[in-house]
């Protein structure tokens, strides 16, 4: 091919340009530490890196959520721990007091001890961190338990049979005329709609029953073998009651002010972690007889009355409360295990993602430096050859 002067110079310019542009790219990627400076240099890698980045941010958010969860669970655990210690002390006291060798003076002294337990229990269940109460469900701004001046008929706790068709609510009313804390157990003993269904009542946790009550939308007085203390119950008419449906009416000087909600945090894609135990769950159990405040109240009045049998009954009840509390210990422990497991798995996921991200995004320093050296040598060679060619001219020999 015929080579012209202009072509020679054009080729020199083009080749040098292409070499400098390659060096420039290597230089940029070395200086910034990033393989690509623009999204169009490698769109697929850029978008992959974006995906990794958002995964990483999400994982660090989940990790921070897990820390919050851990905080809640740790504090809840220690509150429950303290409550259990109280139960243990109360049990010890109750078992001492249940023996016949203890005289009434000893029991009178123990009364103030029980009083102390109740005050301490109130402090423990009302534990808060950062102004948030741990055992109130969603109502984190409200102390879970409030001590009243006198006994008060509390909200009805429903415990329906599975398959029960009842969707209404039961309301307790009346003025309590008794002096000690107690719990009325209302159980349906003949199925049907409100007005037809009948129920029976127990004041001692279902050991003895008083029968012959009919459900009604109006307030119906209920009583037990221990007499009529002015408590009433009304049912809203909605669906059929089933045999065994229970409605528990606590009468107590402690009112639960929280709710039943389980507080959850997001700890993964579509994954929630419950981090709280409500005060009612922890102290109550399902039957209503287990309310620790109730039991302590009863223990107190038994001691006041120098009633060794009453103290023995309280010991039984304390055992069952402790058993209930243990279940929630187990729950908190399991959640804490899940936190640790999740933290570990996020940590390794984070490491893997960081590695992948680095592979996609970061300059391979060794390879890039080698390439830069190679380019430099090539460029020097090109410059040398170019100057040699440019220096050649027929003119020099004419």
């Amino acid at each position: 091919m015929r080579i012209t002067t202009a072509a020679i110079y054009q080729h020199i310019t083009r080749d040098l340009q292409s070499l400098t542009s390659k060096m420039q790219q290597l230089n940029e990627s070395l200086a910034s530490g990033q393989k690509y400076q623009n999204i169009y240099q490698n769109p697929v890698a850029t978008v992959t890196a974006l995906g990794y980045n958002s995964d990483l941010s999400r994982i660090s958010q989940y990790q921070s959520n897990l820390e919050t969860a851990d905080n809640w669970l740790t504090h809840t655990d220690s509150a429950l721990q303290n409550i259990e210690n109280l139960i243990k002390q109360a049990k010890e006291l109750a078992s001492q007091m249940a023996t016949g060798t203890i005289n009434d003076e000893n029991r009178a002294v123990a009364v103030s001890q029980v009083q102390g337990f109740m005050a301490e229990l109130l402090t423990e269940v009302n534990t808060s961190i950062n102004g948030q109460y741990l055992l109130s469900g969603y109502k984190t701004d409200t102390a879970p338990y409030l001590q009243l001046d006198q006994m008060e008929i509390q909200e009805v706790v429903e415990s329906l049979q599975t398959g029960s068709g009842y969707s209404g609510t039961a309301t307790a009313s009346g003025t309590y005329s008794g002096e000690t804390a107690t719990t009325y157990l209302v159980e349906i003993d003949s199925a049907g709609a409100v007005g037809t269904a009948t129920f029976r009542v127990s004041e001692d946790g279902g050991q003895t029953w008083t029968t012959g009550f009919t459900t009604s939308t109006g307030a119906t007085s209920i009583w037990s073998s221990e007499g009529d203390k002015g408590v009433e119950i009304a049912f809203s008419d909605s669906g059929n009651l089933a045999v065994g449906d229970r409605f528990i009416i606590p009468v107590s000087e402690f009112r639960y002010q929280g709710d039943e909600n389980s507080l959850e945090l997001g700890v993964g894609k579509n994954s929630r972690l419950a981090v709280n135990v409500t005060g009612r769950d922890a102290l109550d159990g399902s039957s209503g007889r287990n309310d620790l405040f109730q039991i302590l109240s009863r223990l107190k009045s038994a001691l006041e009355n120098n009633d060794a049998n009453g103290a023995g009954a309280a010991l039984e009840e304390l055992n069952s409360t402790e058993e209930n509390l243990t279940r929630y210990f187990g729950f908190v422990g399991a959640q804490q295990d899940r936190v640790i497991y999740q933290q570990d798995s996020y940590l390794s996921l984070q490491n893997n993602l960081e590695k992948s991200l680095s592979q996609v995004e970061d300059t391979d320093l060794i390879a890039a430096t080698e390439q830069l050296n190679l380019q430099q040598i090539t460029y020097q060679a090109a410059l040398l050859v170019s100057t040699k060619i440019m220096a050649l001219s027929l003119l020099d020999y004419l």
Partner: protein
Amino acid sequence: MSINTLLEIGGRALQAEQVGVEVTSHNIANINTTGYCRQHVDLVTTPSIQYPWGNQGYGVAIDSIQRYFDPYLAQKIDDKTAAQQDYNTQKTELASIAGLFNETTDVGLHNLLTSFWQSWHDLADNPTGAAQRQVVVQQAEALAAAFSSLADDLVQQRQALLVKISPTITEINTITKSIAKLNQEIVSVEASGQAANDLRDQRQVKLNNLAGLVGINYFELDNGSINVMLDDGTILVQSAEAWDLSYEVSGGEVVIKWQGAGGVEKDVTDDLSGGQLSALLYVRDDRIPAYLDSLNELAQELIGEVNRQHSQGVGLSLYSQVSGTYGVDDPDTPLKDNAALPFGDQINEGETFNIYVDDGNGTNVAVVTITITAGMTLNGLRDAINAALPAHLTASVVDNKLSLQATGSYSFGFGNDNSNVLMALGLNTFFTSTSGDTQNFAFSLGINDIISADASFIATGQFDRQGQHAVGDNSNALALADLETANVGPGDLTFAEAYQELVSTIGLDTQKAEQQETLLRGILDQYTDLRDALSGVSLDEELTALIKFQRAYQAAAKLISVADELYETLLSLK
């Protein structure tokens, strides 16, 4: 045969070699002139004279001055120039758009989107935290600002491209006029029968320039003039006449018009191919609108989904007064599919929502369920609310928007909305956008004034069936944070994925243009090398030719002096 013949041969030889030197010097002088084709002088022998001893040569004559030129190569170069310039312009313009989406920085939309969802998680961890609420508002504001500025930048880019289209068209018109003028000159020069080499070179340069601006076809007529057409056959230059192109903006898009004889106009926008002009049009009226649409769709889905979830919830405070952010075009037309409601199509008729009224001290006094009946109008909804809660609040229609005002110390909130009417009317919502304009979601994305003024209205929780709401309830905040990983964005992707898709589309578009440009530049370089091999000036060659002609000239001069000596010899015979 005489000595005179010898003198004549010598004289013509001197002339011929001198022209040879001149053509060579013309070549050397134009070695760096764009589009110059080297020329050479065609020397022929003069007709011989018959003598009894045979035909005797009568010296040299100049036949013509020719240029080395290959019309096929020229046309190939013009074709590839059109394509290369097309992709080159696309690459330049798209790269500057890609710069807007450069997510290697921390303030990219992608990172802000991630931070936005993180702020919801932090709020879910502590729904009563004033700081966490404020962070949600700030992150949302940053996100809204990023959406707006991206949308604004894209619109600015479109505007800037219009500014580039105008001079391109002026340049095309200038070039076609000068081609027509050169046509005229070439025809008149070549009437004598000799090629107008330099004028043809100039015209070829103009044609190449024109091809870089817009894709063309051309052919040469017998008289030497060239007719130039757009790719669809629309004539730009016909002999000595040129027809102009003009542009106008119609419906936001640029329309290129051909101005024919007698005021005839023709829309040639869709027939253009290649050259800078079609690249500018493609980027301006095809790519940028597509990117803007994707961005708007993303903003629309984000507003819709966040608002849908937010309107289900309740914050720490209840409303004493609230107005919708979206208005209808006419309060007596049905709400569903109302043209002015950006989310009117989402309304489910026959479904319900709840209004919860509080006495102002945290005690619920009423829970009412409002049903969106088939064909319900805004006035109808107003009446239904007033009928349901006559003592607690007053609903009214102000500026075609629904407004609720609590009576006395009552306050109220919303929830359990299956009808989507709250999100459609902008009640108890988080984001806002311009009402009635469905094209501007990204640009007009903003935060509901109520929330930016008082973050306690951020709906972290939900009312329970009895109308109670607890401050520690984080269920709605969790549901909002979950939107991050939900496939509810455009194209059933997550929001981040939908944005990634947009980024990769822009990146791939730019990369494709860059790769095509590189490829075509390679091809063009090859054709240019071929053209140079034929038409380019080689200094060595010209210097050699110079010496060659110089020597021949010296020899011809020697002929004259020999003839002179012959005469002298003859004249000295006495």
